[in-house]
């Protein structure tokens, strides 16, 4: 697995983490290129199903990041998101779906360096964990079985 390069999707809010990641760029800080960002207006907009869709489409890891509590551009979106993630994480843990593959973080528009850290730490962790075989199998194995007609 030494040459395994994980695919990591980042779901970030426009006002804090996206801007923070812009600052990482402006500051020319380097981080792993495995992470690709999808922009949302607010963490409150991020549907938990999208995380599953990312795994189903082959992501090995996920980062979800937005404004620090109290800093939400829309006042409360991140607070709602927080409750949503608490519940989601508990459910995933209960079902044995590995939440160590998801990094939840608050990265503000000023924390360009933190963004680089979050990315690098996540990529290193996922690289060690290897590809997310069990979720991929969930999607692929069943199709193969159906092709074989049971």
């Amino acid at each position: 697995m030494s040459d395994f390069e994980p695919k990591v999707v980042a779901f970030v809010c426009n006002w804090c983490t996206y801007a923070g990641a812009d600052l990482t760029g402006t500051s020319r800080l380097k981080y792993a290129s495995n992470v690709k960002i999808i922009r949302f207006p607010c963490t409150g907009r991020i549907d938990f199903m999208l995380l599953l869709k990312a795994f189903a489409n082959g992501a090995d890891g996920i980062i979800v990041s937005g404004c620090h509590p109290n800093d939400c551009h829309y006042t409360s979106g991140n607070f709602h998101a927080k409750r949503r993630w608490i519940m989601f994480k508990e459910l995933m843990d209960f079902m044995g779906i590995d939440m160590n593959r998801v990094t939840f973080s608050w990265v503000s528009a000023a924390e360009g360096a933190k963004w680089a850290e979050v990315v690098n730490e996540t990529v290193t962790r996922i690289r060690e964990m290897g590809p997310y075989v069990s979720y991929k199998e969930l999607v692929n194995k069943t199709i193969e079985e159906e092709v074989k007609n049971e």
Partner: protein
Amino acid sequence: METTRKLIRKHSLELLYKKLSASNKVYAPVTATDKQVEYKYNPPFSDVTFDHIRSTLSVKNLVFPKVENLFIFSNSKTESSITDVNLNLLPNVVLWGSHPCDNAAFDILRSIFCWDINDEFFSKRLEKVTVIGLACHTSDDYCFCTSTGNAPNSVKGSDILLSKLSGGDYIAEFITAKGSSILASSPELFENETEEKAVIAVVNTKFSHEQVTEKLQTAFEHPFWVENSLRCIGCGACTYVCPTCACFDIQDETKGKEGRRYRSWDSCGFGLFTLHTSGHNPRHVQSQRWRQRIMHKFSYMPDRNESLGCVGCGRCSSACPVDMNISEQLEALQNI
């Protein structure tokens, strides 16, 4: 045609099972940990149950899987190409120990899938199936096979029908050429029939399906439907466990450039089933959907497909979370 009847000892049955397992996939019922009876491929003989009344699901998935690929496609910038599923690669399957009601369902399914044009996904699968049925020696209140023209020891749909003898051995009745070929290939396992009688469950007739069909001709607007379906919660349990329900959906699924078109089980119990894009729904309330299910099986199918759409297995009633008992309702319908 006069059928051959042979005796097969319990231990020979095991030998037969093992022999068949070596060259086929054998699909046989086992009792799962949670008391549910489910069919599995090639389970150890010791796990196979001979005493179940009914499995949780029917065996229709052998010929009508819950998900089935219709073809594989591939998309490029402007082109698309289609690759067929090779149905010839389907394995031979021996369906072992299924009851006469489930076996009778194959003909009914054929009347749906092949009534007009031949659905080769269904028919090719059916060709590959050899049915070693097992006559019922027990039954329960949900059973009503005798009301639908079946019987606990009906040979309909079976290639071989086993019946349990009071001593624990079995009578094997060879009904079709497929069945006889098994006898021909393993004559050593069978003995001649004795005087011992088979134990056959008693299932009382609850209604006359002919009368029900007759009544339904004019019952479309009857208040019966609303009154008797108020407690129906609109799930698809009855249709999915049913051995003869064959409604399906067709969907696409892609991953990157590749994808497949498949069909999957669908249920007339769902509102979405008939919902138009405009939001209009011809069957917009549950009573209409419940009516559709009964009408389809007991009126439309006798009319269009020349077969009754029900084998009287009672699965839909036992699976129903709110006790929508179909034989009770049919009994009532007979008398409206």
